[in-house]
């Protein structure tokens, strides 16, 4: 009898541990870790490129605040969009539609983290960076999620600004201001966002249509979307060279950025000419690689400048 009770208790302990781990995983998933990693990366580039120096601990705090703010905005977005997440195959396993976290818990989690990240940024770094961080969260939650996403096919164009702010936040964390270079970094991500998401929506348009999200392929059709992807890509390629033109970085960035821009345009041409899903999928994947490599090059070149 005692033995079976001990076994039951052991099983209970394992079960409790598993539930705890599942809880933790659900809350981590609310932070959209993959989006967060790209945001951290671009924020770090702003931090490294900015003139001036920052204590390494404060630099880590700045990156932490950017990461937490991005996660918080993601959690609030998941709370607001839980109804459409439940009907889209790409998002129906998210914590709220899956029933692992309630909407209220996600909202509370997001709001507390958002407030904490803005306050810590202000106290540890400066209030200009803190204000920009608050603007980033506010733009993503109120302008993109609540206002634009369900109303206009321009949702991703204007809403993309939210994802473009982090390098400006990183820059402001060091200098306390905004400059031409930090605006250039913003513009790169701003112009990159529409072709990136439109490539995804080309092969997920059924999902978006089912959820009632007016993405461009749903509203204007695939042909128009493919044309818009090409236009934005043609604009993005030269914009990608802006940090080099402004003299913030050297050839280490300039040459690969020109090649990557050309490859981006080639991908867009393939999408424009080919109605199939394959080209759109490749474009989506390459767009992630493009932005990651571009900002990695910025960090490398910026860090080399610091060493020089």
């Amino acid at each position, binding site marked *: 009898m005692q033995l079976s*009770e001990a076994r039951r208790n052991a099983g*209970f302990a394992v079960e*409790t541990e598993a*539930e*705890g781990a599942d*809880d*933790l995983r659900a*809350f981590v998933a609310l932070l959209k870790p993959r989006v967060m990693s790209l945001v951290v990366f671009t924020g770090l580039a702003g931090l490294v490129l900015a003139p001036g120096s920052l*204590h390494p*601990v*404060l630099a880590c*705090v700045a990156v932490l605040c950017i990461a937490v703010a991005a996660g918080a905005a993601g959690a609030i977005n998941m709370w607001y969009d839980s109804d459409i997440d439940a009907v889209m195959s790409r998002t129906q396993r998210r914590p709220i539609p899956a029933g692992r976290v309630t909407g209220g818990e996600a909202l509370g989690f997001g709001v507390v983290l958002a407030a*904490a990240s803005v306050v*810590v940024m202000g*106290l*540890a770094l400066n209030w200009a960076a803190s204000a920009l961080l608050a603007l980033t969260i506010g733009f993503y939650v109120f302008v993109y999620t609540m206002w634009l996403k369900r109303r206009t096919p321009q949702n991703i164009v204007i809403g993309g600004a939210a994802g473009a702010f982090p390098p400006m936040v990183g820059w402001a964390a060091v200098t306390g201001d905004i400059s031409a270079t930090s605006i250039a970094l913003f513009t790169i991500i701003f112009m990159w966002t529409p072709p990136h998401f439109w490539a995804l929506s080309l092969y997920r348009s059924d999902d978006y249509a089912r959820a009632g999200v007016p993405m461009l392929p749903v509203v204007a059709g695939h042909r128009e979307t493919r044309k818009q992807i090409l236009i934005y890509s043609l604009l993005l390629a030269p914009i990608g060279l802006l940090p080099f033109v402004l003299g913030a970085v050297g050839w280490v960035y300039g040459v690969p950025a020109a090649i990557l821009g050309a490859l981006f345009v080639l991908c867009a041409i393939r999408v424009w000419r080919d109605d199939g899903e394959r080209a759109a999928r490749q474009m989506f994947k390459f767009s992630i690689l493009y932005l990651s490599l571009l900002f990695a090059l910025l960090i490398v070149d910026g860090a080399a400048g610091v060493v020089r």
Partner: protein
Amino acid sequence: MADREDSKQRRRPSAMHRSRRGRNIAVALLLVALVVLFYIITIVRMGGA
């Protein structure tokens, strides 16, 4: 026998109770981390000044 089962049930906290306990521990750990973070930030900023 039924009494014994009842007492066992009482000893087993409900799923909600367990979940709440886990979250309380997580919040406590986060608060401690925040205290440590503020301490380090203060030391660094005072050093810089």
